[in-house]
């Protein structure tokens, strides 16, 4: 397989995640969509790392995984706090300053 095939796959996955982020109003689904986007980027980095014979891509993929894990820890804490306060995980409920 060529590098382009992997990059196209990564673009498709990133697009799916982006559609999810913009379309969904459920906060949990929003988190899931960001995970999809991060994974899509990881695939692209690993592919570039292989086809250019360079390890930097894989290093960045590791740090992206670390960032994703910490994002989940903090994000889920905030989500639980929001649910305790509002009783719902609807994104539209966050709009407390309607212009």
């Amino acid at each position: 397989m060529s590098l382009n095939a992997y990059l196209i796959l990564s673009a498709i996955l990133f697009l799916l995640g982006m559609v999810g982020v913009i379309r969904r109003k459920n906060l949990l689904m929003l988190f899931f969509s960001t995970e999809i986007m991060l994974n899509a980027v990881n695939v692209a980095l690993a592919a570039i790392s292989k086809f250019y014979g360079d390890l930097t891509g894989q290093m960045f993929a590791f740090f992206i995984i670390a960032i994703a894990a910490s994002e989940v820890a903090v994000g889920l804490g905030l989500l639980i706090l929001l649910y305790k306060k509002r009783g719902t995980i609807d994104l539209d409920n966050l709009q407390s300053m309607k212009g």
Partner: protein
Amino acid sequence: MFEIVAFYLFSILTIVMFGITVFTNNSLYALSSLAAGMIFISAFFFLLDADFLGAVQIVVYTGAVMALYAFGMMFFDALSVVKERINNPKLMFLLSGISALVIVLIFVAPIVNSNIEAQYPVHPEWGNAQDVGVVLFTKYLIPFEVAAVMLLVAMIGGIILAGKKMDISYSELTEEEIDALESQTLKKDNK
């Protein structure tokens, strides 16, 4: 031949799984299909000779992150349907697609038609895990330490955020005490 078959098989599987995650209304289906998609993603890492990354993907994502999500879903009513009203769904769809494509193009553009030299070249005779270890603990030691500190801070932050008002253990109280507590909080909420 093997690589082509595996690539197309796993790309179709991954896209279908992530499609289910993005478009389903059931959080439980979304969680399981996301976990399956993560496993299929690791197949690409194995195809790309990034064995260690593939193992990390399985352990961290499907092991830790998905368990964290499943655990977090216990704290709220995740199966309740969120009303998702979007004023103009088609326009939204188109805009998100275009913006995602533009982002991908911006990031891919510098790679096309440029001579890139490997700064940290791969040593095929070492094997991937050893190669990754050498580069990670020499050239990327400080980012590695910073990432470790960040993970610790995020973990403590998550515990503090989620653990607020959890100082009362219901399992140690009697029925009457729980009833008294419930009526107290109800009164507070009604105020």
